[in-house]
């Protein structure tokens, strides 16, 4: 049984992030959603308070490298703005391959600036024909000019339009066989072009982009790991990022719960506050229980990850599955118990419901996770 009581520092960090989000970001979440652009001012606030350092080990300018600490931060950010939680989440996702699989030189070269947020990174995996089926990717890398040339298209890539580096996965032909390989692509080059930013149902402050690689140049020293290591790298990365994503879902559920609970305590109909009515109590009781259960799963998984547990794959899938379902269920119920006001943009809760849907889809569709959990059980017991 892993103990996930938070340390005093983690509690202080949670408190600080909560205050920061409530005081500085909460008044502008609607603006962020309506503008539908990356909120650079929020990223700047995060830089100043070391939020990007949480994803990086201490020796490279980070904090303690603990996934629990990252989840503590992400929950509090998402509790006010799931879109802003993507700022920290994507930075962690994009840097994990370097942290886990980079050489000492690569880590020294990139991680300090990633920790300060001076260098922003993204994760370029998905393609139009390769979503759940990552092996169907068609982006190719060919050795040339003392390095590599990459050609292909990636889509649904968060924050590619503001990233300095994108870790891209491409197939390298080795003796007639395709080997997925990871490359750190520097975006400041003519061969890297973001040509579309999607309009989405929710998470609108987190730009979702499509980009083309046209003979994009990658120097040899930007190859991550070895040729053919790409699948291992991406799977290991996703086991961690799924837990982070789960903590974002958790924050979203909590944020929706905060708003709707405050509302039902205040709103009077038929001479009593809604909170006194059984129908509302039934719903709220379920919302709270589901959120707490999600919290347990998130921190159980994060704790296991930090401890190097062998059961991490199953736990990360379960955490992601349960937390994203909690986010969707709790935010939908939150809108419902707020009635007409729940539907109105001004009251803030409808944004949580719109934001929640994608958490059931990205970072591995929930259906895949259900299957993965079952298969893991059958294989390992």
């Amino acid at each position: 049984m892993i103990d996930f009581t938070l340390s005093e520092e983690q509690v202080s960090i949670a408190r600080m992030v909560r205050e920061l989000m409530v005081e500085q970001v909460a008044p502008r979440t609607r603006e962020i959603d309506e503008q539908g652009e990356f909120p650079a001012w929020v990223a700047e606030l995060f830089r100043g308070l070391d939020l990007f350092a949480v994803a990086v080990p201490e020796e490279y300018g980070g904090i303690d490298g603990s996934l629990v600490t990252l989840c503590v931060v992400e929950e509090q950010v998402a509790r006010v703005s799931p879109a802003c939680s993507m700022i920290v989440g994507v930075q962690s996702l994009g840097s994990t391959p370097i942290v886990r699989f980079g050489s000492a030189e690569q880590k020294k070269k990139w991680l300090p600036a990633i920790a300060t947020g001076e260098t922003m990174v993204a994760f370029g995996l998905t393609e139009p024909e390769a979503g759940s089926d990552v092996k169907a990717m068609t982006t190719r890398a060919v050795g040339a000019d003392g390095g590599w040339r990459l050609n292909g298209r990636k889509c649904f890539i968060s924050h590619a339009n503001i990233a300095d580096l994108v870790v891209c996965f491409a197939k390298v032909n080795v003796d007639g066989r395709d080997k997925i390989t990871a490359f750190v692509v520097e975006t400041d080059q003519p061969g890297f072009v973001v040509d579309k930013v999607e309009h989405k149902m929710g998470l609108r402050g987190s730009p979702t982009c499509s980009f083309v690689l046209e003979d994009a140049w990658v120097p040899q020293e930007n190859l991550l790991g070895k040729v053919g290591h790409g699948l291992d790298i991406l799977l290991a990365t996703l086991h961690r990022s799924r837990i982070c994503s789960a903590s974002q879902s958790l924050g979203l559920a909590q944020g929706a719960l905060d708003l709707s609970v405050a509302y039902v305590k205040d709103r009077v109909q038929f001479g009593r506050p809604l909170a006194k009515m059984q129908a509302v109590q039934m719903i709220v009781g379920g919302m709270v229980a589901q959120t707490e259960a999600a919290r347990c799963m998130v921190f159980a998984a994060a704790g296991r990850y930090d401890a190097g547990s062998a059961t991490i794959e199953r736990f990360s899938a379960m955490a992601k599955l349960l937390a994203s379902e909690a986010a969707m269920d709790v935010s939908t119920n939150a809108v419902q118990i707020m009635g007409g006001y729940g539907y109105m943009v001004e009251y803030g809760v409808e944004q949580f419901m719109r934001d929640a849907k994608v958490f059931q889809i990205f970072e591995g569709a929930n259906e895949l996770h259900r299957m993965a959990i079952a298969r893991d059980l059958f294989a390992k017991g």
Partner: protein
Amino acid sequence: MNTVVCIKQVVDTEAEKRLQPGDWRLDRTVENILNPYDEYAVEAAIQLKEELGGEVTVLCMGPDEAEDAARKALAMGADKAVMVTDSVLENSDAQATAYALSQALKTLEFDLVLCGVMSTDAQTGLVPAALAELLDLPMLGNTSRIEAAGDTLKVNRQTDEGYIAYECPMPAVVAVAKGINEPRYPSIKGIMGAKKKPLETMSAADIGIDTAMVGSAGARTSVLAATQVPPRTAGERLSDYGTPEEGAAKLADFLFDAKVV
């Protein structure tokens, strides 16, 4: 330039955005925080240090839990903390608190003592002036701006009309007004590093406190009674009145009848 900031831990009355330690996901209604007025003083001290070098020490009188307030100041950027904790100091009023703090200050080296103008609980605002008196130092209160050049402080004191600009040599006591700056959030590295910074605890005996001057023994005032004020109830409310002019006329009727204009 070395600064000592006197801080206090108080109960948070705006609890909806706070976390309860240990049970951190639930916001409860009672929680202890660093006195918001003192945050301005801590921030001012750190800004002076960033500009002129030196050390910032926070001095806090309170029970063991008050250490959290000191840790927050350390996380913001203060260099050391001194706690004055002793059961004999319980129930000390503002004057006794100032006496105890002054005894502690006599053991420290400083160019400047900074305080917030008051605490959100007692709201007496007595401590800074009392400290100055007990330490025989110049005192500048209600300041909206503070700068230092060499041995001299330049300070603006807020008035209703504007401000009065003073110059004063150090050492001195300065009370900073709310809004003099924007207290920084403690960074994550700051929070992680706070535990490693020195925190010293002094007892009443360590600083030569005369127990007759503190606690209940040292009280110079006493509370005779406390009564709850009956809440004001709603009076007349006008919503159906036709045009704004007609509404204004009815309001004017009320004001003239009440003889308040």
